[in-house]
């Protein structure tokens, strides 16, 4: 039996790691600083599954009831303190 992978689940939208240049383009387009992006935690099942590394930008394409398909971006981030210590 094939191992379960969240990425294949129908409720998980398409995630795609952007090459550095592409990421920079996005930041320029929206005139953003990396810190202004919403986070995707490095230990998020999707992030682990697609092998994302901290600092990378992930492009998420999902369906929207208002706009059809919608593209958003998230920054791969390390966990906050509260999650580190058990």
């Amino acid at each position: 039996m094939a191992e379960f992978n969240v990425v294949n689940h129908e409720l998980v939208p398409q995630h795609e790691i952007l090459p550095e240049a592409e990421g920079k383009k996005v930041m320029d387009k929206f005139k953003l600083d990396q810190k202004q992006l919403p986070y995707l935690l490095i230990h998020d099942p999707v992030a682990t599954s697609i092998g994302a590394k901290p600092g990378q930008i992930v492009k998420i394409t999902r369906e929207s009831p208002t706009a059809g398909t919608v593209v958003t971006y998230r920054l791969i981030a390390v966990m906050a303190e509260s999650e580190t210590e058990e």
Partner: protein
Amino acid sequence: MVNISKKIASVEFDLLSPKEIRDMSAVKVITPDTYDEDGFPIENGLMDPRLGVIDPGLVCKTCGKKVPECPGHFGHIDLAMPVVHVGYVKVLRNMLRSTCRKCGRILLSKAQVDHFEKRMATLIKEGKNIKPLITNIVKTASQADVCPHCGEHSGKIDIDKPTTFRYDDHKLTQADVREWLEKVPAMDLKYFNFDENIRPEWMILTVLPVPPVTTRPSITLPTGERSEDDLTHKLVDIIRLNQRLQENRDAGAPQLIVEDLWELLQYHITTYFDNQTAGIPPARHRSGRALKTLAQRLKGKEGRFRSNLSGKRVNFSARTVVSPDPNISMTEVGVPVEIARELTVPVKVTAQNIEWAKEMVKRGPEPIPPHGVFYQAGVNYVIRSDSRRLRVTDKSKNEVAERVEPGFTIERQLEEGDVVLFNRQPSLHRMSMMAHTIRIMPGKTFRINLVVCPPYNADFDGDEMNMHVLQSEEARAEAHTIMKTQEHILSPRFGGPVIGAIHDHITGGFIFTHGDYSFDKAETLFILSRIGYTGELPEPKGKGGRWTGKQIFSTILPKDLNLEFKSEICEKCDKCTKEHCANDAYVVIKDGEVLSGTIDEKAIGAFKGVILDRIVKDYGNDMARQFLDDATRLCIGAITLRGFTTSISDEDIPDEAKAQIRKLLDDAVDNVNKYVEAYNKGELEQMPGRSLEETLEINIMRVLGRSRDGAGKIAGKYLGIDNSAVMMAKSGARGSMLNLSQMAGCIGQQAIRGERIHRGYQNRTLPHFKKGDVGAEAKGFVKSCYKSGLTATEYFFHSAGGREGLVDTAVRTSRSGYMQRRLINALADLKVDEDRTVKDTAGTVIQFAYGDDSVDPTKSERGKAINIEAAIKEILGKAKVEELVEMQKKEEDVDLMRSIQDDISTEDVEKEEIEVEEE
């Protein structure tokens, strides 16, 4: 004056040390009394003059200043025995749990210390929050059994309700705790997020600061009696007990007595800080009222934060009951003279308006208007250039007027046309506060046009509303451009009108335009005069030289308006005959002329009005305002001419109908009994996925539901459209056909939690029925109608069902209110940027495009960016639309087809509207 701007670099919270408390103290308070017999404050008492002044004119003994300048000064009480500060109980517990009783060191091994030290250093370097790490440190340290530093056993710390600590089930006195904390070395304090200059033992009080009298002023009652603040009362108790404790201890009283007194002192000091501390009874007044101590001054809705800092009382506002006036415009508000005379607008006196200003002041505060004028604004105050206020009275008005010069400000009373803000609580909406221009009127209520009732959610059963008078030109300009009622006709929630015709306006519109209802010349002139019509009287289009209602209504439509839609009264026939509809339910407007159809809720109503919607979007807010004002006036004109009334006799149905209904209901009951019989015999066919009992219930519910509908249909057949109640129900003015059928036909099944009523006695709902009876009547079916009245058992079941509805609404409103409060607080500072990204105050992106599609719902076509069907129709004419749709079908352009279909089917729009109405 030099302006120095300073920036706050940081704010730090720490503990007051006993030394600091003594240093800032102006008085050592010893006497538990306030004033002596002659009314003078007692030296070293709680009202010692060195604690500040509250009587105007007196000089403070500490700082030498008078009332507004003297800030008040703290005093102190030396406590005979140490006492725990309730506010720090949690911190104390943490500290006792994670330090050693013998050596005071933190219960962490060398390795743990190294690990945490490193984590803390990185967090501080990265500027991150260290609180979660502190929590972890405390958790780790309190798990240690043995002190890693001295090997001492580490016991279990428990708290006995508010302030008593126990160590392995031995009570720790406040003095024990203090001694323990004294041992904790400064270098270990960082693990508790304490500065090394703070001593943890300060959390156990040895000195109590006495707040200045300015924070607890005494009030002199009209009888001359003095009434002290709750805090003063509490401090009196504390000093008394402190004295007794000291005396007993010094006299060598038995340990038990000393301990009791100590405990009592702890209680008083605890309630002095927070009189709602869990685990102890609140301290009360002689009257039984709980005292309002320090925490109560700050906490909750009535506390300093929510009541005085987040929201305040305002000046230049008025509140009174609202009542309706269909003759004023929707942007106006009728203001009583008494309110207009009290509220003012400041006007700066300049070289240009000085003559006018002098004239105004000469009128005084109560001018007598010239003959034929109802009201004239006067002046209440004149403010001189040195900002001194001069009250204008009838006596002083001429003298004050002479002294007016440029640079002065006069406070003019309200005048017709002033812009004010008008509001009704709860303000759940942007539209709950809108700008109106005022009309001064006799009477004591605010008068509003009925079309603004839906956005305010106002009715006239005693509702009160607030008015705020704008005080600056900027505010007036802003209110005028963005807050006027006509700027809010369209709701940002669903992109349709929230302001629109209701109730009698709709009935009026229906009467006016249904079929070929017409008016003679006098009537036509009467109706048109109500909107100040000045054009030529059009050629009469009705029979016998009469003017049709449709024709008169058309005079207020824009001349290039083209529109087609189904009226509210549409019966939703299988095949729509459009303009040939037998019910006159298909509206066709061509070049601003109503050719067919009835103008009802669907045309001009709030939430649904299609004509209204079109006019706001295509012709602008001002045109829409004019249209609404005119349309409602015409409708009221028409309904006034015809006359309109409704009474219980509207629900009269002939005896034959009653017989039919009785027969139908009897059949239904028989039918139910048949099902019950079948069930009892075990012949009932089980439905898939249901138990036998469930199957029976479902069948019974269906039979009874159908019979109720049937009864409604029979009643409806005998209630024609010329019946006033039916007219209101069908046109959407008020009530529904269900309401009518319940009055004339049958009320139907009563339910609790969606099921027939089954609670009550053992195996039956009421003793009127046999045990185990599951028939219609025994389980809450009401055969009667409201008009005929209910039987005793029916009445009981109806009350049970009705109670559930009441409880539901009560629970729902409170819960959704709190939920909305939380949502608003969470979303309050999100903002749509210039590039349509949604960001919070930190600049973090929440959404890359507002609502994913960057569409402002206010400017949308009911949530969608455009109405494709209407757009095509407008450009190509109607015939071409069908052609285009054909063509698209062939090309299988799914996307466009889907959007066209979406727009044609009004299904989803209607669903939304039901939601809207329920609110």
